[in-house]
């Protein structure tokens, strides 16, 4: 069984959910496979729908790999994009991200 690390999702209303995500899985999967509301991920992680946006705090943002062209352009069209915006289907869990905190937008549509 792959090593698991923790990620905390904070809903727009402030409610926090901490879940475990296996190494190599996407952070999006950590949310949708558990009962974390606020991430739709309609396409299941194919970077085809831009409905898994999260806001990453600056202290964590530097530890993430840079955005691919596809993520960059898909994000351009997500609602309420901010400097820390990422598509969580494109972020892979690793030891370096253990304990990462992600804020969720009000809506993905």
């Amino acid at each position, binding site marked *: 069984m792959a090593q698991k690390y923790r990620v905390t999702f904070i809903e727009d209303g402030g409610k926090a959910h901490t879940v475990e995500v296996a190494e190599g*899985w996407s952070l999006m*999967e950590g949310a*949708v*496979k*558990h*009962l974390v*509301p606020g991430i739709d991920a*309609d*396409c*299941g992680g*194919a*970077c*085809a*729908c*831009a409905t898994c946006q999260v806001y990453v705090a600056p202290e964590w943002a530097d530890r993430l790999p840079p955005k691919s062209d*596809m993520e960059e*352009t*898909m994000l*351009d*069209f997500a609602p309420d994009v901010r400097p820390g915006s990422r598509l969580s289907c494109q972020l892979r869990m690793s030891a370096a991200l253990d304990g990462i905190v992600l804020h969720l937008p009000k809506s993905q549509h």
Partner: protein
Amino acid sequence: MSEKIVIIGAGQAGCQAVESLRKEGFTGPITMVGDEAYPPYQRPPLSKAYLLGKFERPRLFLKSDAWYAEAGCELILNTSARAIHRAERIVELNDGRKLPYDKLLLATGARVRKLRCPGADLAGIHYLKTIADVDGLQDVFQTGKRIAIVGGGYIGLEVAAVGAKRGLDVTVFEAMDRLMARAVSPQLSAFYADEHEKAGVKLKLRTGVEAFEGNGKVERIIAGGQAYDCDIVLVGIGVIPCDELAVHAGLASEDGIVVDQNARTGDPHIWSAGDCTRHVGREGHSIRLECVQNAIDQAKHAALAMTGNPKVYSEVPWFWSDQYDLKLQIAGLARPTDALVQRGDPASRKFAVFHLRDGKVAAVEAVNAAPEYMIGKKLIAEGKQVEAAKLADTSIPMKTLG
């Protein structure tokens, strides 16, 4: 007494319905019945990353096992429903169990269309719809094997791309004169034909399959009057809606369970969502959509209606396909009479084709072109007039056209 909701079918639509029912505040018991061995899972990766071996099975599942308990959803797997007793509001399962319901959702999906020709039941002829199908294919899907793919649609071509990547000898047989003829414009068909040939895939267009031959297992495919040796066959010639349960219960089906814009059938206690349905789309035509988008959006609308807050389902349909490093994203429903506007050069492997109808964008096909796809989808939803010349001009940023 709280109401009971029963969902027949444990796929993308069924799973979405559970999630949406809870989101809409439904607190009564939910039971979901599925005929496969697995809880709801994503089908799109099956013909892509999962077949390639780059996506472990646990990742296919839409939810963790614990999710269903947390969501208060009883999951009955390996079981199908054999009858709906509408007067008593009872669903009868094939093991004889009887589930009473107040509201019922049919999310039975679709099954693969089977080839009917001599030799069609030989061993070694595969279809691709379920985890079990792919697992059965994996053992023989090996470097050096000759695979004959029947059908040049999404499934056939995605398997062809994975096959080429894994070093199989791939031949695609397509009865029509171009690839994905039902789904995309001639420009896209030509582009994808070129890409597949560059990857070493042999394409046999206008070539219908007549028979399979072999001693105990398939060894040859007879197509267009010629025999081709092969080790494996993969057939991807479309799906048929699973509407038998509804039809036997006296509900209307016209190649798809007929539902209204709230996903309701003719019975006020029964809704239906996903691949198994037929509804009047946003353009006023009766359509049957086979896609994740429809499964998700129609299930959401069924949940809204079931919880007393109906909204009209009029979302723009969207689709995607991954072949090689090409991401194809499509929004809207094209018609053969649409005017086509190309943006970008296919040689750059990044371009889009817009389908215009009455001066408005009716559909967009985008290859590695997310802005064109996202703005195109928005233009379809808004129904705004657009200038074809501007869409075609890549010096004008897509963003300024939305």
